């Protein structure tokens, strides 16, 4: 059978709808235990309930605040440390082992520690999102600067450009393009940090709701939250993809 790749989305959607219908029918026929596998209509019901009761907004706000705060701080600090390490070998010697260690471990294991250090408020979530993003961006920028295209540097120099021209026309755009091309990963990391932080200890946020749903065996709410988090991250992926495309027209 020959599949038209342009029609792939039709097949994907049709299959999804079919799976959901079968799932729903099985649920209604009493073949699934709602405690483990709530039917699609129950999940959607839980999702609608979250929004109609208005209770979701404070949680969304908490998670977005922590994720975006950690993202911004992580990028800022990652870029600054990356640049400093690339310029000053002594600093690189100090930072590199620490960063390599932090890079090697799954950094979310720091969540309980951060909850103790920074309390159950937003700071511990910002800190977790921050550490996830900062290490990623540090390596992006540090190795990026060390591997900046030597031909571009030589070119600008032989055309008569000085140190400032090198920074402005070679180093800054290079750094910006590496950070941008890692933006999607960074956004994913930031939300992971925020949600995991909330899951461990919080009084607000999507992660907190997840942990609440878990402790009350509310599978419908849990799956509704997973869908919501996916939707949020997809929207942000889309937005950062647009930004990347716009700023990297030259690529």
């Amino acid at each position, binding site marked *: 059978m020959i599949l038209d790749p342009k029609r792939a989305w039709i097949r994907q959607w049709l299959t999804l709808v079919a799976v959901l219908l079968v799932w729903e029918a099985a649920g209604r026929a009493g073949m699934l235990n709602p405690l483990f596998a709530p039917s699609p209509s129950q999940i959607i019901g839980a999702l609608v309930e979250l929004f109609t009761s208005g209770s979701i907004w404070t949680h969304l706000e908490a998670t977005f605040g922590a994720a975006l705060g950690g993202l911004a701080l992580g990028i800022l600090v990652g870029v600054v440390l990356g640049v400093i390490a690339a310029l000053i070998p002594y600093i690189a010697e100090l930072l590199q082992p620490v960063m390599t260690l932090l890079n090697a471990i799954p950094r979310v294991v720091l969540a309980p520690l951060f909850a103790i250090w920074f309390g159950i408020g937003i700071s511990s979530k910002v800190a977790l999102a921050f550490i996830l993003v900062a290490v990623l961006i540090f390596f992006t920028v540090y190795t990026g600067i060390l591997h900046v*295209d030597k*031909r*571009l540097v*030589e*070119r*600008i120099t*032989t*055309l*008569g*450009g*000085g140190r400032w*021209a090198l920074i402005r*026309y*070679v180093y800054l*755009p290079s750094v910006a*393009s590496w950070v941008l091309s890692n933006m999607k990963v960074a956004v994913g990391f930031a939300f992971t940090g925020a949600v995991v932080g909330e899951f461990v200890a919080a009084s607000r946020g999507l992660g907190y709701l997840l942990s609440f749903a878990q402790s009350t065996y509310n599978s419908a709410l849990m799956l509704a939250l997973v869908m919501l988090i996916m939707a949020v991250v997809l929207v942000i992926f889309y937005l950062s993809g647009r930004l990347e495309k716009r700023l*990297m*027209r*030259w*690529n």
Partner: protein
Amino acid sequence: MRLRDISISYGGGEPVLEGASLEVPAGKFVSLVGPSGSGKSSLLRAAIGLQKPLAGNVEIEFGRAEVGILFQDDALLPWKTARENVALGLTFHGVKREQALREADAALAKMGLQGFENRYPRHISGGQRKRVAIAQVLALKPKLLFMDEPFASLDAIVRARVVQDVVQLVEREGISVLLVTHDLGEAISLSDTIYLLSQGPRAHIIQKYDVPIPRPRSLISARAHPAYGPLYQKLWSDLSLEVTGKVAEAAE
């Protein structure tokens, strides 16, 4: 421009070059040919000041701003359009941005790139990128041009056209040129004088050839000139002798 008794060694080892001298008279096109690895690029880098020679001296009658440099793997800034790339060098030399952009368009037009001014380097072909790089250098109106195998990465047809464009511009503007190449045909059809570098280490200039083909030239007319064939044969046999001679010597 004159190079006198240049010796170069890397890391204090046996000199790659020893006592190499050559001269580029004003308005003349000079080529440097030699076996690969003999030190042609090293000598050129010494002339430019990118490589400090062990001994010898470099005399250049022009200021830093009057010297243009073109290497094989010259890269354009990928995040700047062709026009902005060309204008950049001009702004480094104090030309106002508006004026620089106008001159950039003119330089691109001279290299046959009208309509491509707003393209980014990744969105044009390799031959067009090379032309942009050449326009970038020629826009600075250099009096002296150093080129190290600038056309080597181009395929034969594109290469012939780019070389033709460059030779016309150089003749029209009376630019002095030192070209490093391993293409003997290119050396003969472009140059007034050709220097042959011996096989290294301790490479030095072993021969100087004058090319008696009148200007203005085109690549075709140069190759059709009666002096072309004999000179090509002479260069070819001298170069072969140099390479095989050294191999035989090493085998003893």
